[in-house]
């Protein structure tokens, strides 16, 4: 077990380093220097800036320096906001995004899973058809469209919640629902189909043949088995929530990391793009690691299994 964790941690670090290097060189491949977009700066000032950010060093030295700093957790200064570092930006933005993301994932789990079970138990009934239709809509509507539509209806039309901003409970409702929409629909569909599959298994018949009540059959015998596929998709799902927050934060004017990221892309703020990209990958790699651990905990076969060869 310990060996497994150690190996995974090492490979996680490796992945993040690969992402960091690839992104670093990609940014340097851009034809215009980082300051070219600003209105024609005098050559003097550009030179000063380049010196300040060590852009006049040879490329390999810049790279080695960057990786060195990265390993110490320092993502460097922002090119755009002269007085802030990328670490500052992440410190400011991430807690907001994390709070919003956590609410969305929670909503997805709390609503999506029961909805899927409910639909499966009423397979082909009208409740099932309705839930599945709505879920299919849910996975189809792009998040920025959902955001705009929700804002149109509930904020600008019905005036029940504020259209934008951050800080109050009411302000979190629309963005959270927007972000949770896709995962809810996705989980409901996944849980329904795995539930139907599990209910066809022989061990469920065995449980029924023992005289167990239907609720015991579902909650004791089926639930843990359907959680296994659910856990495997949680990693990608969390990724979807975070990347979804790029536009949602922009539309609802939420001061989260996603909004900074989009802004930094439009400003070509290279160090911020680079730093936040690395941060996101590290976060997701870590989430996937947690998911794997949960998976092993849920499925006893993973813990000991020998691969069978006939």
């Amino acid at each position: 077990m310990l060996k497994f964790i150690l190996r995974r941690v090492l490979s996680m670090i490796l992945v993040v380093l690969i992402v960091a290097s690839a992104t670093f060189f990609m940014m340097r491949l851009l034809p215009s220097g980082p300051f070219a977009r600003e209105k024609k700066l005098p050559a003097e000032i550009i030179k000063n800036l380049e010196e300040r950010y060590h852009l006049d060093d040879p490329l390999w030295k810049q790279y080695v320096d960057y990786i060195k700093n990265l390993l110490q957790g320092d993502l460097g200064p922002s090119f755009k906001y002269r007085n802030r570092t990328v670490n500052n930006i992440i410190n400011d933005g991430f807690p907001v995004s994390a709070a919003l993301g956590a609410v969305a994932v929670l909503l997805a789990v709390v609503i999506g899973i029961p909805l899927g079970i409910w639909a499966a138990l009423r397979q082909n009934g009208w409740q099932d058809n309705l839930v599945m239709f709505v879920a299919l809509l849910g996975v189809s509507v792009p998040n920025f469209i959902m955001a705009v539509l929700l804002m149109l209806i509930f904020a600008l039309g019905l005036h029940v919640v504020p259209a934008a901003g951050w800080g109050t409970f009411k302000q979190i409702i629309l963005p959270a629902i927007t972000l949770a929409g896709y995962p809810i629909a996705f989980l409901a569909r996944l849980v329904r189909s795995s539930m139907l599959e599990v209910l066809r298994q022989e061990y469920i018949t065995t449980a029924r043949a023992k005289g167990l009540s239907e609720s015991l059959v579902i909650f004791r015998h089926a639930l843990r088995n359907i959680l296994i596929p659910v856990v495997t998709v949680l990693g990608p799902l969390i990724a979807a929530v975070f990347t979804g927050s790029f536009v949602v934060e922009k539309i609802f004017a939420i001061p989260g990391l996603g909004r900074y990221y989009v802004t930094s892309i439009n400003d070509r703020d290279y160090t911020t793009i680079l730093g936040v990209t690395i941060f996101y990958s590290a976060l997701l790699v870590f989430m996937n690691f947690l998911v794997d651990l949960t998976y092993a905990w849920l499925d006893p076969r993973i813990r000991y299994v020998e691969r069978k060869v006939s």
Partner: protein
Amino acid sequence: MNENNVLMHIQGLATSFHTYAGVVHAVDDMTLTVPKDSVVGIVGESGSGKSVTMMSVMRLIPSPPGRIEGGHVWFDGEALGMSDRLEKDGPDKGMVDLLSLPAEEMMKVRGRHIGMIFQDPMVSLNPVLTIGLQMTESMVVHGLATKEESWKRAVDMLALVGIPNPEERMRDYPHQYSGGMRQRVMIGMALSCSPELVIADEPTTSLDVTVQAQILELMKELKAKFKSSIVIISHDLSIVAGMADKVVVMYAGRMLEEADACDLYEKPGHPYTMGLMKSVPRLDAERTAARQSWRRAPCAVFSPPSDCAGSSWICEGGIAMDTILKVEHLKKYFAVNVGGPFARHRASLKAVDDVSFDVGRGETVGLVGETGCGKTTVGRTIVGLYAPTAGSITYCDENLCALTHEAMRKVRSKLQMIFQDPYASLNPRMTVGNIIEEPMDIFRIGTMAERRERVQELLHTVGLNPEHANRFPHEFSGGQRQRIGIARALAMSPDFIIADEPISALDVSIQAQIVNMLEDLQQNLGLTYLFIAHDLAMVKHISDRVVVLYLGKIVEVDESKDIYRHPLHPYTKALLSAVPIPDPRVEMQRQRIVLKGDLPSPINPPSGCHFRTRCPIAQPICSQQEPELRDMGSGHVVACHFVD
């Protein structure tokens, strides 16, 4: 109280399945009586409705698409303790109709009064719950014991069904048990509430023959102990022969014949039953088809003459014994990952470990052994699907292992294979014609028209309508598909065919057809067979010589007529005695050697003699020294320290 000593009486039961293809009447007007303290066997082929009948009794028919259309299932009211639901009079006085019980009442019957054992123990236990929980829950649910008491009882029950260290093993998960062990757990689970009736639905079909013998013994023992009635469902007449007092034959959802077990086996009344009996090869019968002569079939005209076909082999009377295939010191190891994702390391699985034998031209050699003994690997290595780890395979004086890729492809045309699963071995996206034609296409034999003609001819040879060449495999039944597979193997006019369990996926009556056809083909085309199987009775029927494998090693080789009469190796003896004989009188007198335990893992085989862990006559020397294969005269070879 009913006077007739009847535990259960099924009357006019009808169950159907409403599928999009139409209504399937799986059970139609079925009637059956189960006396108290008795064993009733239900036999019939796939789809005869025997399982559906019992699932209807349990009211566990999946619905939709299934529906119980009518009938009654009367169950002894006294046993159920449902005095308010008793039938007042008539022949079923004092009984309760299970089909009319409300759902909650039925739940109290399941597990408590009727226990059930399913066919495949690998999928009928919940993989994510401990054995302990699954063993105890029915006792707790039916209020027979508290959690603590039921735990104790479950431990006792595990000990009773023969699980070593039951206390510890209660905390294990199903995947940590072997197949045979799981079936023991299933039996223990079914008996945990001491039900009046136990339904065993093909309880040994998915198990190896030595494990099957263990399970059947166990069921007999427990039957005596618990005084439960048993309904045993099987497609295998011989299993039922050893167990049942009364046998019911089902066909197309109805009961065809019901009789006392001995009477049925002695003088079957219905022609279907007679046919069913005849199609089962018996261990205690002599091999009848004597193959004295054969000649080359005229249909092989445009195939290229094989380089190795000497003219000497066309003979009349007597068997020409020039060796066509020689396997020497063959080894095949697979690299496997052991230990799951948390502690992975590479290990080698010794699927075939130093195997040598040879096959004479025109001969049929049977290769037998249990799952995991390496018999399939031997076959696949010979045809070149696997590269051998060591050793040599000589086919017609040519060392196959030394051939180049291209040369090997050429040899393959003379060395063909028939596969086990007729559903998986035909490409579902190709027409039957294309499937049979493909080998000729690959070797660019003949023109298109000639190949077409040859396909027609081959279809006719295997007894299929040549007009069906443009149909797809899924339109054919299992037996028909196996014929298509055989036609494909014959397309290149091979000399040698490896048949890898060619009949084990088929119903018994179809098995007989295929085996007879293989024998016919051998006579007409002068083929040589390597017949791989786990069914010893069938191997005895078809083979001239038998090679017995255990954990990748040969333990015994002999002429098939001799090996069944005088087996020398204790494993061969056990294998033979584990095979049930479809005759209750013979069954009752037989002394069984029941092997303990399961096959050890081939990744980590026992030291010395591989068989010593299950051997009834093992001595200290067996763990230290590996027995050599010794010639006992007239081709009888055996690997055991204690054979003289």
